[in-house]
């Protein structure tokens, strides 16, 4: 149920305890509370510190390759016959996705804390690779937890992480996917809290993670806003981004939240269809609950047990979502929609053929929704789609669906 609330200053959230309305907060065992207090203290000290920000910006420019282009997809726009579709090319970042923006930022924080070991959870492996990358560069020990199922499905990324010097630990508990990897990373952190920094990959987890990951990802939206003004002479009319945990979406949306004219669409993984129950779309078909340190919309059964999700895209295959998205849903500021596996697959293929850009299966969900939205809009209107990652990592998945052995 959405109730439109006007005159909210969206940039002022979360409150000091990490709440976005009823969402967010800090639901962890006592052992971690001090580490989170410490992290919050360090983050509040450096987040407006010109020296820290300059270091972050320098790494984004020279190591990640920012700014990423805002590309007018003329062929796609022409085919759709409506709004002009621009792609924010996060796929062109070093390591191939938006994930690196956040790991650069958190690695700088880790440096400030003096901790020598970093850990991460990963689903598709993109965040694991991005973490292993910054750890290699800074000489930090790196352990990545990955569901045993995902280790099988994403063998290429597992090998990339190993080449980068990380230890990849397959997680065999629970459903053996991303949520279990996150449980295991939390267990590691509880055990090694003195020397370990946990680099969470999305805008979820206990406060201050949803806030700091968002802040590091906001470079996407800040750039897109300036680029759109420079290239088109005006703000976009709509933003579209896929939502698993929701870090690429919040990164694009946040700098536009106070621009009331800009509509926003978060695209969840509809899997086999929201009506089948086999999906990963908690904002479309979930209830508020508590998991992984925060209160947010979740997919769960009538006893509050988290249920298994399904998406063709491993990066969206998660039963929760960042708490700020839950709040943006309930305030009505962002529309959360779902795209099914087959729709995302079709857009993966069409963008590859029409524009010569191969999107990640996650980002293909956003492209697919833009393909539905554009024809309903005028030719003078603008959609910005976050192309959050490149599709090279998904080639084996796509080939398998095609019945081809590569």
């Amino acid at each position, binding site marked *: 149920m959405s109730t439109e609330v006007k005159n909210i200053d969206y940039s002022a959230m979360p409150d000091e305890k990490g709440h976005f309305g009823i969402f967010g907060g800090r639901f962890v*065992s*006592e052992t*971690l509370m*001090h580490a989170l207090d410490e992290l919050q203290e360090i983050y509040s000290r450096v987040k407006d510190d010109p020296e820290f920000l300059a270091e972050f910006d320098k790494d984004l420019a020279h190591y990640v390759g920012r700014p990423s282009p805002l590309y007018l997809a003329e062929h796609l726009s022409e085919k759709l016959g409506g709004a002009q579709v621009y792609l924010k090319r996060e796929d062109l970042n070093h390591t191939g996705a938006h994930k690196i923006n956040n790991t650069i930022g958190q690695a700088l924080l880790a440096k400030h804390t003096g901790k020598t070991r970093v850990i991460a959870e990963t689903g598709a492996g993109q965040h694991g690779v991005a973490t292993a990358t910054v750890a290699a560069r800074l000489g930090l020990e790196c352990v990545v937890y990955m569901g045993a199922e995902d280790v099988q499905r994403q063998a290429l990324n597992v090998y990339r992480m190993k080449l980068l010097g990380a230890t990849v630990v397959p997680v065999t508990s629970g459903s053996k996917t991303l949520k279990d990897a996150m*449980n295991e990373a939390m267990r590691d952190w509880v*055990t090694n809290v003195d020397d370990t920094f946990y680099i969470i990959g999305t805008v979820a987890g206990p406060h201050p993670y949803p806030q700091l990951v968002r802040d590091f990802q906001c470079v996407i939206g800040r750039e897109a806003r300036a680029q759109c003004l420079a290239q088109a002479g005006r703000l976009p009319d709509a933003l579209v981004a896929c939502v698993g945990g929701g870090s690429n979406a919040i990164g694009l949306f946040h700098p536009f939240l106070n621009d009331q004219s800009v509509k926003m669409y978060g695209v969840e993984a509809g899997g086999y269809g929201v009506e089948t129950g086999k999906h990963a779309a908690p904002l479309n078909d979930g209830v508020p*609950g508590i998991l992984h340190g925060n209160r947010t919309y979740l997919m769960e059964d009538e006893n*509050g047990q988290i249920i298994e999700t399904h998406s063709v895209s491993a990066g969206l295959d998660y039963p929760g979502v960042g708490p700020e998205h839950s709040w943006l849903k309930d305030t009505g500021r962002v529309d959360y929609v779902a795209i099914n596996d087959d729709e995302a697959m079709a857009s993966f293929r069409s963008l590859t053929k029409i524009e010569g850009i191969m999107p990640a299966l996650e980002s293909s969900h956003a492209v697919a929704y833009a393909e539905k939205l554009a024809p309903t809009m005028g030719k003078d209107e603008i959609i910005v789609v976050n192309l959050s990652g490149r599709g090279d990592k998904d080639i084996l998945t796509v080939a398998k669906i095609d019945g081809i052995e590569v």
Partner: protein
Amino acid sequence: MNRISQCLQACKQEGRKALVTYIVHGDPGLEHTLPSMHRLVEEGADIIELGIPFSDPMAEGPVIQRGHERALANGASLTNAMELVSQFRQNNKHTPVVLMGYANPIERMGYSKLASSAAKAGVDGLLTVDLPPEEAEALNVELKQQGLENIFLIAPTTTEARMADITALAGGFVYYVSLKGVTGAGHLDVTSVQQKVEQIRKYTGLPVLVGFGIKDKDTAKAIGAVSDGVVVGSLLVKAMGEGESHDLKSICDHLASLIKPIRKGLDEL
């Protein structure tokens, strides 16, 4: 007075160290839990901590994780845990029962319904691992109304400032987590436990019980000597779920064989 306070006060008067035993509701089968609870009491358990299984038990080591998985596969839930406690109360009016679990199942049931059903069933307290004092206010109000205690954890990493905040809200007893790690871990440091327990006592008159890493008579005795009692969990869950037989009698006998020496060790103090 709440059963937990009565029990721990009696322990104190008798110079007896409290023994809290943790098992998972529904593990290895729904039918095992009730007889095991009675047997644990017979063998000298002072308080029963009943684990409510959760799909994502973040603070548990592998042994208790597997216990939760088995229990969920058997259909264990918060709702049928309450029914079980009601049955337990038909034959036992004095042993305190604490439900230990994670926030989401109680969030799903709703705090008000949870508190009233728990009180009606004969539950005495709640320990919710991922509900620190900062997030526990709404639940506290409901529990208080029903005369239930909210039990909080204090960890090796807890600062003195936090100790003051936690003990201000805590009821029943303080559960000191003996080590940085998950349940069932093996790196117990008695000296540091002793220092921390003394620190906690500066802030509260509540009994301080210590759990995580207590696995035999020696560790129980060492920790019992510096606290008001111990919590034993992984040891029992392993015996129940991963022993040679799931036969009810052998499970109960196995539990008894583990608890007897621990009780004896504590009574030697």
